């Protein structure tokens, strides 16, 4: 029986990063992955494939809707959806192959099969053919991730009523796509198919989109997406759905409480994700899940069983690949006796619509509820020369800073390349910069980042130079 210092169960961005870090720290590591390829949701059916489709659909959208205005004539523009999906597959394959290479390079043993605790030091692995083997390990990191949440009254058939996983591998562009849930996943996939010509209707129970984001951001995002032509039915309570041939009928109660029907050819259920621990055998080692089916962990990401750690979507906190990665490194270093720390307040959130939306730190509603005295600096991209040149003038950068000390407490932006720009906010906040600190740093001209500086100037002393 093979013997390891640490076994990582789950090969997603949390798990494989943890495995590499453990190997770097000189440990003998095994990683167990239920599917045939490593990479988890992020690489296979999440972040990476959705970005592949978001990027190409954005190109098409630009060619179709904006090129004329730019002075570019396009004739015979068409979508080869099969090629789009195939290219997405190539992107995914290149990425997962990269992970497989990294495992080899770091001498990490990869086991494909379902990992299950026999004892806290013995893991059984059952492969697809049903063959079983066992390995021994001193410590374990559970990184089994999450699955799309299904609503009890709305069974997923994976054909017409689908999750994000199926939405990334459709064989045709939906004519009428109904999306249940206006969270990040729903808005991103909605954008993809809207750009490719689907009529997209987003049905949301709450009265806003991207509900975890700053309210200003959420409002602007809704405004821009609506202007673009996506239909939103907010404060609408979905009650069920039926499939008849190629037609899906979603029944719901609208804002006024009246029963309505929404018809489409596909219905994407994007109401969130649930931790995935099925078949893990947690009961064999005495770990019980919390009320939201997550594995309880302490600040060191250790579970109630000493030597067993858990990271990523399967524990508390935002279900984000980059959060899982940080936790993977943290757990590995803790196991090695180091003392790393994660500032959970500074894990950025990003939405890859166009314009992109991104946030880090406290939202305005957070600060209000904490009763914190703050000031706001908000600058529109309309004032940015760079944004005017590229024709991306929707959106703004908003800085929230401590009223007394001027320390930046939150950064919220919606606009071109916001997903990449948010990192300036993260760095600033990790170093506890004040708004004035940022406004005294040279930002290259002309770039979108100038809006960040201008917002800081505006927060410092209301001295934006361009507004």
């Amino acid at each position: 029986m093979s013997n390891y210092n640490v076994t990582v169960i789950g090969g997603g961005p949390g798990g494989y990063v943890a495995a590499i870090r453990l190997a770097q720290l000189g440990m003998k590591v095994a990683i167990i992955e239920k599917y045939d390829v490593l990479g988890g949701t992020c690489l296979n059916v999440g972040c990476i494939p959705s970005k592949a489709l978001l990027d190409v659909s954005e190109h098409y959208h630009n060619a179709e809707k904006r090129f004329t205005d730019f002075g570019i004539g396009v004739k015979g523009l068409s979508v080869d959806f099969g090629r789009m999906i195939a290219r997405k597959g190539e992107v995914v394959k290149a990425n997962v192959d990269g992970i497989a290479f990294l495992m080899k390079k770091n001498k990490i043993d990869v086991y494909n099969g379902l990992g299950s605790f026999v004892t806290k030091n013995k893991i059984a692995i059952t492969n697809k053919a049903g063959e079983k083997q066992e390995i021994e390990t001193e410590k374990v990191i559970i990184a089994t991730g999450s699955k799309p949440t299904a609503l009890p009254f709305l069974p997923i058939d994976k054909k017409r009523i689908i999750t994000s996983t199926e939405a990334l591998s459709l064989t045709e562009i939906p004519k009428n796509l109904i999306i249940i849930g206006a969270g990040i996943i729903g808005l991103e996939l909605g954008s993809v198919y809207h750009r490719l010509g689907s009529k997209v209707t987003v049905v949301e129970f709450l009265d806003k989109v991207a509900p975890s984001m700053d309210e200003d951001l959420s409002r602007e995002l809704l405004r821009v997406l609506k202007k673009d032509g996506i239909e939103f039915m907010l404060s609408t309570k979905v009650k069920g759905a039926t499939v008849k041939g190629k037609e899906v009928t979603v029944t719901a109660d609208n804002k006024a409480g009246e029963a309505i029907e929404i018809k489409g050819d596909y219905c994407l259920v994007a109401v969130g994700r649930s931790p995935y621990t099925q078949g893990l055998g947690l009961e064999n080692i005495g770990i019980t899940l919390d009320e939201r089916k997550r594995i309880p962990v302490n600040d060191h990401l250790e579970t109630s069983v000493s030597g067993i750690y858990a990271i990523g979507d399967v524990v508390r906190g935002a279900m984000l690949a980059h959060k899982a990665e940080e936790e993977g490194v943290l757990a590995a270093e803790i196991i090695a006796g180091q003392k790393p720390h994660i500032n959970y307040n500074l894990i950025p959130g990003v939405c890859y619509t166009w314009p992109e939306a991104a946030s880090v730190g406290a939202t305005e509603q957070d600060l209000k509820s904490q009763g914190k005295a703050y000031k706001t600096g908000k600058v529109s991209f309309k004032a940015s020369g760079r944004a005017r040149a590229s024709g991306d003038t929707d959106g703004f950068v908003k800085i929230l800073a401590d009223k007394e000390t001027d320390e930046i407490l939150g950064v919220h932006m919606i606009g071109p390349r916001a997903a990449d720009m948010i990192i300036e906010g993260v760095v600033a906040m990790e170093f506890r910069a004040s708004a004035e600190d940022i406004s005294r740093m040279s930002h290259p001209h002309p770039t979108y980042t100038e809006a960040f500086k201008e917002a800081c100037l505006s927060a410092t002393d209301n001295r934006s130079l361009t507004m």
Partner: protein
Amino acid sequence: MADLKIPAVAESITEVTLSKFLVKDGDYVELDQPICEVETDKASQELPSPAAGKVKLVASEGDDLKVGALVATIDESAAAPAKEAKTEAPKAEEKKAEAPQKKAEAPKAEAKAPVAETKTSYATGSAPPAAQKILDEGGVANKDVKGTGVSGRITKADALEAIKNKASIGGAKKEAFSRGERVEKMSRLRKTVAERLVYSKNSTAMLTTFNEVDMTNINKIRAKYGDAFKKKYDVNLGMMSFFTKAVCLALEKYPAVNAYIDEGNIVYHDYCDISIAVSTPKGLVVPVIRNAESLSLAEIEKTVKSLAIKGRDGQLTMDDMTGGTFTISNGGVFGSLMSTPIINPPQSAILGMHKVQDRPMVIDGKIEIRPMMYLAVSYDHRIIDGKESVGFLVAIKDFLENPDKMLLGADPIDLLLEMI
């Protein structure tokens, strides 16, 4: 032109060592801005600028300077650089002026940096992730690290340096068979300590008497009331307050121990100014708890704490350290089991505290494990007889072993009772 000269820091001091300049030659300095740091016999202190202007440094770092010697001159006719001007331009103008000036200002930025560094802010002492990890792993608290980053932030380099310093205290690795040696100038403080100790040995008839004290009862009180004490007074109930109190009561019983010889006279004191020997990064200093006999336990603990912090930060002033009628030295904090302390002249006696260690003791014919401390009193036999010194030490022992007896002499326990 204004001159910065070595001031008469204290009566007994004729010479100081210029340890460090705090400004660079040619800098523009403000009135009262610290120009340099000088070390005197007992403390280091900063010398402020007598005027605003451009500074020219005359003396060099490491110089021994007599009182009145020239350190630096300040050219008051030099104009203050525009950037340093404190007056704020009206907002509207500022906006216009700033934009075109941007490029011209850039080279000056460097000169401004050191000023920014010394500023403190909400972020002072905060460490970004890499630095924080290094500190946590090295077991160094952020407050013990001087951040050199913007506004006192702790940089990765600061953290690495802090860890290195900590390691070197614990014994830096030396090359095997090295025959290297290192010559360092004796600090003024070290020189003074050396002179005074030799003087004490040579000019007194010093000898030491020993005893031991059972700390059981003091430990009980500290365990029982420690938390409440800390809550009420925001200071730990340590051993120092009990020892100081016991010493004061014993001194009242044996006034000769609290006296000193002054040219054929013996000067007795109605008060107990207790010098406490404190080890600081720069060496041994002995700040004084004034009128310790009239202080409560909490007041003693607070005084000890503030003196220790001042000592650590090099902030002790002359006044903090002059005077003193009796000294307590605690070698126990370093693990000493027994020692013969040297009298701090012109005082006539010194108490040495030591490490508390569990030892088998015979109590009522049975062997019991008790927390024991050896006590030593070194005294000047010229004015203190053996009977007095031994009686004095036995009295201290008695008060400490039976703290309730301290009630009869003074009020400290009243405070404790108040809290019950």
